[in-house]
């Protein structure tokens, strides 16, 4: 607005804006997922899809997960945590303090590499009968 050199320099150097305080946390997750926001097969993993890691932390070729140099520390965290106990995408995100979208992509990578598998949640409409829901009620009462 003042037209002085300082202003124009700042405007020309637009890239610098992406490294300010506000941009920091926005940029990082996407760098972690190599700019992708969807997994390789294009599907979105359900929030309550359960992730199960291979017991031996090995992929289909038998190679250990640590030998895979393409994986980030966050990938390894997911493998480790879901090997301890199978858990949902939402739990992984909450437990590792990562945004859901990031966890989706990372899990997608791990599925592609064969280090984890994912169960699709059963929508209530696909349950064979009420038995499970009666069990839910009993278990809730017993809590």
């Amino acid at each position, binding site marked *: 607005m003042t037209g002085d050199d300082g202003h124009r320099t700042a405007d020309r150097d637009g890239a610098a804006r992406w490294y300010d305080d506000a941009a920091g946390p926005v940029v990082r997750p996407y760098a972690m997922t190599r700019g992708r926001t969807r997994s390789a097969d294009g599907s979105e993993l359900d929030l*309550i899809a*359960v992730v199960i890691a291979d017991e031996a932390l090995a992929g289909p070729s038998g190679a250990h997960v640590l030998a895979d140099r393409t994986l980030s520390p966050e990938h390894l965290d997911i493998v480790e945590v879901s090997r301890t106990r199978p858990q949902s995408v939402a739990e992984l995100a909450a437990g590792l303090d990562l945004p859901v979208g990031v966890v989706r992509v990372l899990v997608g990578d791990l599925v592609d590499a064969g280090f984890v598998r994912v169960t699709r949640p059963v929508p209530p409409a696909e349950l064979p009968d009420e038995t499970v829901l009666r069990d839910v*009620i009993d278990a809730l009462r017993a809590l």
Partner: protein
Amino acid sequence: MTPTRTDPVPLALKLLVAGGFGVGKTTLVGAVSEIRPLRTEETLTEAGRPVDDLAGVEAKRTTTVAMDFGRITLRDDLVLYLFGTPGQDRFWFLWDELAQGALGAVVLADTRRLADCFAAVDYFERRGIAFTLAVNCFDGADRYPESDVRDALDLDPGVPVVMCDARERESVKHVLVSVVEHAIATGVVGHRDTPQTLA
């Protein structure tokens, strides 16, 4: 990958917890589960910021939406997840994903501000998702008979109305049981291709 492990992979079910601002959603989830914030990042278009401020920066920004999230381990092989729906109107689109495949929902209401839960009631009614209307009985709020609440919200006769204290585990358990019972009663199971209707 060949499954090599022996411990059971749990069947996962989810319930949603909705209601107006400050009605006790976080309190309710925390009363029955270990609660943790769940972050999603959403792209929002930012309107109304002074042009001087934006100068050349894309007006779209990614914003973090935090939701309440709780896990209840019912059995080795059975887990119930609770998701508190984000309260602000601009996050309605997030509900659609949460509602997909949900077993049912709790709509929390405060009798001093009943209108705040209209939107949630309407949302679940339209989608045929079983819900229980839980009246959070805050200290100092007048107690209304159930029928008044039902009338004011124009609820279907089958919708359970339960008085609760969101801070009390037993009370919240009762609310959740009511949702699951209602889901069973409305035929949530085994009606894959038929739209759910309230009995």
